[in-house]
C-alpha cells in the first residue's frame, strides 16, 4: 500500500557525526493520510532521523522525498512550504506573543488577512484555546503550550505533520485529550509521531516503526510489534508487560 504512492519516503538515509553513525541506511515510507508511530530506546536515532525530515540536519548520505520532490538539502522553510508541519518536543512557540498572535502568524503564511482570521478562530475553537486566547504563551502551563503549538502547526494546514513526543510532560487527562486530537487530525492529515509512552502509542497507533541503533528494527501493526519478543524484551521491557 505505502509502496504504491508514498507521501514521504527515505532511501538509504544516513547521518554520521564524526565516527558515530546516528542513522544508518534507513529506507522508510509513509502513505498519504497515514498515522505512523516511531518508537525506540534513547539514542536509537529517532530524533536525528526526524531532524533530517524537517531539514534541520542535512543527511550524510541518502535522500528524503516528499511526494516525489527531493527535500534533503532544502532549507527548513522550503520544506515547510511543501506542506510539512513540525511540532517539537519542547514547545517551540512565540512566548512573548499572545495565543491569538501565535496562530495568526502561522495562518497568515498562506492566507490573506481575513481568511487568516477565520483560520485562527477555527483553531481556537477546535483546540479549546478560547479561555486564554489573549494571554502571552510564555505565561501558560506546559500542557496549554503544547496545544498552542499544535494549533500553530495546524494553522498552516500541512499535508504531513511531524510530532515529537506530543504527550511529554502531560497529565493523564491531557494525554487522553491529545490522543483524541491526534485521531481527529488524522482524518485530514498524515502524521508521524515519535513517542516514548507505550500507553499513549496504544491509544493512537495503527502502524509502528521501531528504531534501534540507527536502523529500523521492525515495522508493522501495533499489536504485532508489541508482541514481537525482540521488541518486548530488549527495547520496551517492563512498560509493555505491565
Amino acid at each position: 500500500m505505502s509502496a504504491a504512492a508514498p507521501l514521504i519516503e527515505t532511501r538509504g538515509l544516513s547521518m554520521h557525526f564524526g565516527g558515530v553513525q546516528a542513522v544508518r541506511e534507513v529506507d522508510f515510507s509513509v502513505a498519504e493520510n497515514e498515522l505512523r508511530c516511531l518508537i525506540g530506546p534513547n539514542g536509537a536515532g529517532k530524533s536525528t532521523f526526524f531532524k533530517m525530515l524537517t531539514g534541520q540536519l542535512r543527511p550524510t548520505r541518502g535522500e528524503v522525498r516528499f511526494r516525489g520532490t527531493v527535500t534533503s538539502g532544502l532549507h527548513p522553510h522550503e520544506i515547510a512550504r511543501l506542506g510539512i508541519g513540525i511540532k517539537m518536543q519542547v514547545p517551540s512557540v512565540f512566548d512573548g506573543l499572545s495565543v491569538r498572535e501565535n496562530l495568526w502568524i502561522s495562518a497568515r503564511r498562506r492566507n490573506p488577512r481575513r481568511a487568516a482570521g477565520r483560520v485562527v478562530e477555527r483553531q481556537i475553537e477546535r483546540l479549546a484555546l478560547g479561555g486564554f486566547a489573549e494571554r502571552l504563551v510564555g505565561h501558560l502551563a506546559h500542557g496549554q503550550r503544547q496545544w498552542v503549538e499544535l494549533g500553530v502547526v495546524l494553522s498552516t494546514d500541512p499535508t504531513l505533520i511531524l510530532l515529537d513526543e506530543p504527550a511529554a510532560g502531560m497529565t493523564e487527562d491531557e494525554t487522553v485529550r491529545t490522543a483524541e486530537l491526534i485521531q481527529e487530525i488524522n482524518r485530514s492529515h498524515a502524521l508521524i509521531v515519535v513517542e516514548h509512552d507505550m500507553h499513549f502509542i496504544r491509544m493512537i497507533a495503527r502502524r509502528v516503526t521501531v528504531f534501534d541503533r540507527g536502523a529500523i528494527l521492525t515495522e508493522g501493526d501495533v499489536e504485532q510489534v508489541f508482541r514481537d519478543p525482540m521488541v518486548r524484551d530488549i527495547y520496551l521491557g517492563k512498560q509493555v508487560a505491565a
Partner: protein
Amino acid sequence: MARREAVRLAVVGAIGLALLVGLPIALDLFTLLQVTLYAIMAILALSLAFIWGFGGILCFGHSAFFGLGAYAYAVAVINLGESTAPLLIAMALPAALAAGLGYFMFYGRISEVYVGVITLTVALIFYNCVNSTAGPEYHIGAALLGGFNGIPNVPSINLPFMPDATLDPEDMYYLSMGAVIALYFGLTALLATRFGRVLVAIRENESRVEFLGYDARLHKLVAFAIGGALAGLAGCLFVSWGNYVSPTVFSVVQSAQIIIWIMVGGPGTLLGPIVGAAALSWLTAEIGTQQTINANMVLGAILLVFVLLVPKGIAPMIGERVGPWLTRRRAAGPAARLAAHEERA
C-alpha cells in the same frame, strides 16, 4: 486591546502635533536648535529600535550607518550643490551597506553575538579610515574629506530641486520633528503588517518561523536595510543641522549611546527610544555645561540603574501604570480588572 492601541496612538499623535506646532512658539531659537538635535537623535534611536527591539538583531556598530549617511550627504551635496539627490543617497548607501552585511551575516547563519562583533568592527573600520583622510589628496570630487578635522561648511537641506531655498533653523526643526512623528506612525503601521508580525516572531523564535515556511533570513535582511536607511536619514539631518561632519559620527561612543537610549527608553517599543534619546541627549548637553561631573559617567550610571531596576525601560513602565487608567471602562467589574492584571503580568 485594539481600543487601547487606538487610544495610545491618538494620545501620541496629539502630543506630537502639540510639540510640533507649540515648541517654535514657546522656545527661543537656541533652545529650538537643541530640540531639533534631540529629534534627529530620536530618529537614530528609532532606526536601531526597529531592528533590535523588534527584529532582535543587536547591532553594536549602528554608528556605521549613521556616519555613512552623514558623510554621503556631505560629499554629495558639496558636489551636486543641491540636496534632493544627496538626501536619497544618504539613505540608499547605508541601506545598501546594511543589505550587503546582512546578506553575509544572515544567510551565513552567523550567531547573534558575532553579528554584534561584526557590526562593531565595521563601524571601527569606517572610523579609522575616515579619520586618516587628512590632506588634499583625499577628496571625492569637490569634497575634501579632511581626516579628523571633518568637512566644514556643508550646505543645509533645501526645498526639493530649489538649491537657493535652503531650510533655516526653524524649518530644520519642522522637518526633523515631522520626521520623528511620521516615522513613529510609519513604523507602527509597518509592524502591524505580516512582515512586521513575522519580524517580531523571528525575535521570539527564529526556528519556529522557518518551520512555518517563512524565510527568516530575508525578513532580517530587509529589516536591517530599513534600519540602515533610517540611520542614514538621521546622519543626513545631523549634518544639515550642524553644517559640519567629523569622524566622531562613526565612533564607538556614538554606537553605545544609541543602545543606552533604547535600553533606558524601553526596547521593544517605539515611543521609549524617542523619549530615551531626547531625555539623555538633553542630559548630556546639560552636564556638558559644567566641569565637575563627566557626562559619560552619568550615562553609565543611568544605564546601570535602568538595567537593574527598570529593565523594561521608561515607556513600558509608564504604559503599565497609565495605560489601564486611560482605557478603564466606566463600570470596571472584577473581570476587567483581572484581565488588566493579567495583561500586566
